[in-house]
């Protein structure tokens, strides 16, 4: 596993003929037999030309990968059922364009990999950002794992590949229930009652994030081509909402978490102050310090603000704002999951 950049040196690059390559070999042998039998001098020339082009294509395939520098990038959290995008930076410092690079998750067997590859080019002297999609099928950390970068360029006769293993991971939130009315609970210290006020005082616009309620989208701003924005409303202090695991009516843990996810999203969208209560031990969080550089992305970068009040408690005091929402979602996502191999 690598941290930081990888440069594809020749030790990292492997090469073998493809099925097409073997097929061409067979065709060339047939041609050579014909040349000998019919004494076709120009036939020899053609056969040798094709064979030598094949040999040179091996060098071209190698060159297509050689000395590329690859850095892992962020992977923004997604909800279960969505597609996680692992960003990778391909830095091509040479004057050669790299064509038809393919990135794929290795299959169970080397020869029969049914995963669909992501194909892209890296122009000369450019640093391209590539988003490698992986379906997020379970909540928690989704590991990019070991990826295979390969190319069959230029003739498809040789398969030239290298493994990339960065340990990048993406946080997968539970898939929110479609509709889940907010609970009418209050924070455990008893302060404040739930109120649907807060809808009144418009305080500004912020960027849309997945999960925001549709009625809150500022369609007028969208029409003015300012992108998707969400109206924000200030909430009077003291109106707090307590989102507790114990209050969820569902039987199944995943469903409970899905409901809580919906709650958090709705509460944030309505501009409420809300707190989070999860059963003890359900908080596989590291405390203090920064997240490891390769991990977490947005969630990790925002952590220090909330780290102040993260201790061994499983409860998150009321607050609001994107950072608070993300922290809540993060805790829900990682609730009751074994610690995953992360430094």
């Amino acid at each position, binding site marked *: 596993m690598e*941290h*930081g*950049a990888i*440069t594809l040196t020749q030790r990292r690059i492997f090469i073998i003929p493809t099925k*097409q390559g073997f*097929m*061409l070999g067979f*065709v060339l042998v*047939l*041609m050579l*037999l*014909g*040349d*000998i*039998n*019919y*004494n*076709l*001098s*120009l*036939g*020899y*020339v*053609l*056969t*040798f*030309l*094709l*064979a*030598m*082009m094949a*040999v*040179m*294509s091996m*060098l*071209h395939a190698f*060159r297509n990968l*050689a*000395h590329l520098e690859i*850095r*892992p990038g962020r992977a923004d959290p997604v909800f279960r059922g969505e597609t996680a995008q692992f960003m990778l930076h391909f830095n091509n*410092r*040479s*004057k*050669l*364009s790299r*064509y*038809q690079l393919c990135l794929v998750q290795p299959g169970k067997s080397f020869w029969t990999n049914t995963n669909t590859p992501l*194909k892209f*080019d890296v122009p000369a002297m450019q640093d391209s950002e590539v988003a490698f999609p992986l379906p997020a099928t379970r909540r928690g950390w989704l590991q990019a794992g070991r990826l295979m970068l390969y190319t*069959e*360029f*230029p*003739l*498809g006769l040789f398969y030239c590949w290298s493994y990339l293993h960065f340990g990048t991971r993406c946080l997968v939130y539970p898939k929110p229930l479609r509709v889940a009315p907010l609970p009418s609970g209050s924070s455990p210290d008893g302060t404040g009652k739930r109120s649907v006020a807060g809808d009144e005082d418009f305080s500004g616009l912020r960027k849309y994030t997945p999960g925001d309620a549709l009625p809150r989208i500022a369609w007028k701003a969208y029409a003015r081509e300012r992108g998707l924005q969400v109206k924000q409303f200030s909430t009077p202090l003291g109106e707090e909402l307590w989102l507790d695991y114990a209050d969820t009516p569902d039987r199944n843990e995943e469903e409970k978490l899905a409901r809580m996810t919906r709650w958090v999203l709705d509460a944030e969208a309505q501009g409420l102050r809300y707190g989070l209560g999860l059963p003890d031990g359900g908080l596989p969080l590291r405390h203090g310090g920064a997240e490891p*550089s390769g991990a977490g992305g947005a969630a990790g970068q925002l952590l220090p603000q909330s780290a102040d009040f993260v201790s061994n408690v499983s409860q998150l005091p009321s607050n609001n704002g994107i950072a608070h929402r993300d922290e809540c979602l993060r805790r829900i996502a990682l609730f009751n999951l074994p610690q995953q191999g992360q430094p």
Partner: protein
Amino acid sequence: MNKSLIYGLLLSILMVIAPHAEHLPLWVSGLCAGLLLWRTWLTYGDKALPKRWLLMLVTFAGTAGIIFNYHTMFGREAGVTLLVMLATLKLMELRKPRDAMVLVYLACFIIITNFFYSQSIPTALYLLASLTVIVTTWVHLQAESIALRPRMRIAAVLLLQALPLTLILFILFPRVQGPLWGLPQDAYASTGLDDRMSPGSLSRLGLSEEVAFRVSYNGKPPRRDQMYWRGPVLWYFDGRTWTPGRTTLTYPPDFTDLGQPIDYVVTLEPHNKTWLFTLDVPDKLTIPAIISSDFQVLNRAPVHARMRYAARSNLVYHANVRESERQLQRALQLPRQFNPRAQQLAAEWRAGSKDDETLVNTALRYFSKQGFVYTLQPPLLGSNSVDDFLFNAKQGFCEHYASAFVFLMRAANVPARVVTGYLGGEYNSVGNYYIVRQSDAHAWAEVWLAGQGWVRVDPTGVIAPGRLESGLSAAVSDSAALPFMERNPPQWMRDLRFNLDTLANQWNQWVLGYDSERQFAFLTRLGMESVTWQKMALNMSAGLGAVIALFSLFMLRHLFVRRPDKVQAAWLRVCGRLARAGLPRAAHEGAQDYADRVAAAHPALAANIRDLAARYSALRYGSHGGESVRQEFLQRVRAFKI
């Protein structure tokens, strides 16, 4: 599939099957052209491909048509036709990239079949052009995103890089003398002399510009009227056609009183018959061959490939002065029921001549006096062809004269036979050799005279002496019937033609004729001692390895990123030291940020590391940075301790 990719495939297939159009049955050419047009139209209009059952129908119908046409599905002609048709049909069901790959391979294979028909220099150039198109399409198949120009560049680079490697392989790849298995009967097209001669068979050849063989003489060439290249000897006459007849006799010829020897080298084009051409009469040959009792030189197998041999002939000779009785009887065979007037004329001559030689001269005088015309377009003759020719038409080409002369001789009881072959040749002053074309085909007679043996008599020489001295164009009266170059073209055209032929000759000798024998000779001349295939393979691998290594260096030199400069190296050393102390720099972290983080973790280092980071940033990213500033920085790095 990408539109321009399909156009590329269409062009590739069109280029490789176009040269075949010449010899394919017309309906196959038409079908292929129609399919190509249809496919282009479908692609242009974004229309759906035809239904599978329709294609199946066309395929079955086409295959049936080919079987009907050739009465077989195998063999060269039928096989090539089938391949061309199937490749075109494959275009109609192009669905997956795999289909396109199959088409690319098919295209390469069809190029090879093209070499059955021609391996000339233009063909070779056309091969390169087709291959460029095919490889460009091939690259496109692998990378649909790539534009035409870089695609063509990559294809051209691949081809150019492959060329020197191909040259090495061509020279050193151990050659095996084919064939490996029996060839189908129709493996070779054939033009040239036949072992049957009937009125019109040689005059048809007279129109052919094709080269029969090329000769270079060692030393002074003989006179033109001595350049009789002996081919099949014809004994048996059925009243219309001359054939070799059946012979069970094989004994070596008996040449005496030899003189005026001449050495020469012949490069014979393949003619699919066994005979080799030599000047009369052959003495020595560098290749194993049989010399028959009627002085024909025969190769052991039909000449399917271009062939080179050196020979010596004696232009002055007496041949078989003591001839066997059976052979002389064969030379008197005559179908008595035909040509009564000619037989009568011969009887009159016989009565008026004291010996055979006088009789021969009487006959020749007859031909010169009776107003005979030498022409490429003689009138048709009836069933008494000799009578018709001698007394009515009086127009004919060499085969008419030879045939009539031998008939008259036999009727007058003089042993005689027809000899076919070539006469003369065209001198190529550029390459200093003679080109003998099919249009130089000739027929003459030989009579057996007591005490002299077989003597050549050429009645054509009496009627059209120019034929012997300067070639066909001087001899025939109606030169408009000749091919353009056989008439009298301007000098520059002649020169151009000679230059091109010299080039073609070199090409034939060195490229097309490069077989195991030539390879051996060439490698020995290059200085390789004891040429074995192991040695060749070794040299070949070494040569290929060296050139590929050179290419790799050249190709990969762009990639080696320059080493970091001293300033950067020094900074990286600092980072390394800190990393060992447990504070590695993150990939995204700039010098300044990193320094701040280190300073926070190790307050003792704070001032030092911040100073270094600032200097590093200034040196690396700032505009000013003299040598002294650099030295200062490097010194501070050396002094930096954790």
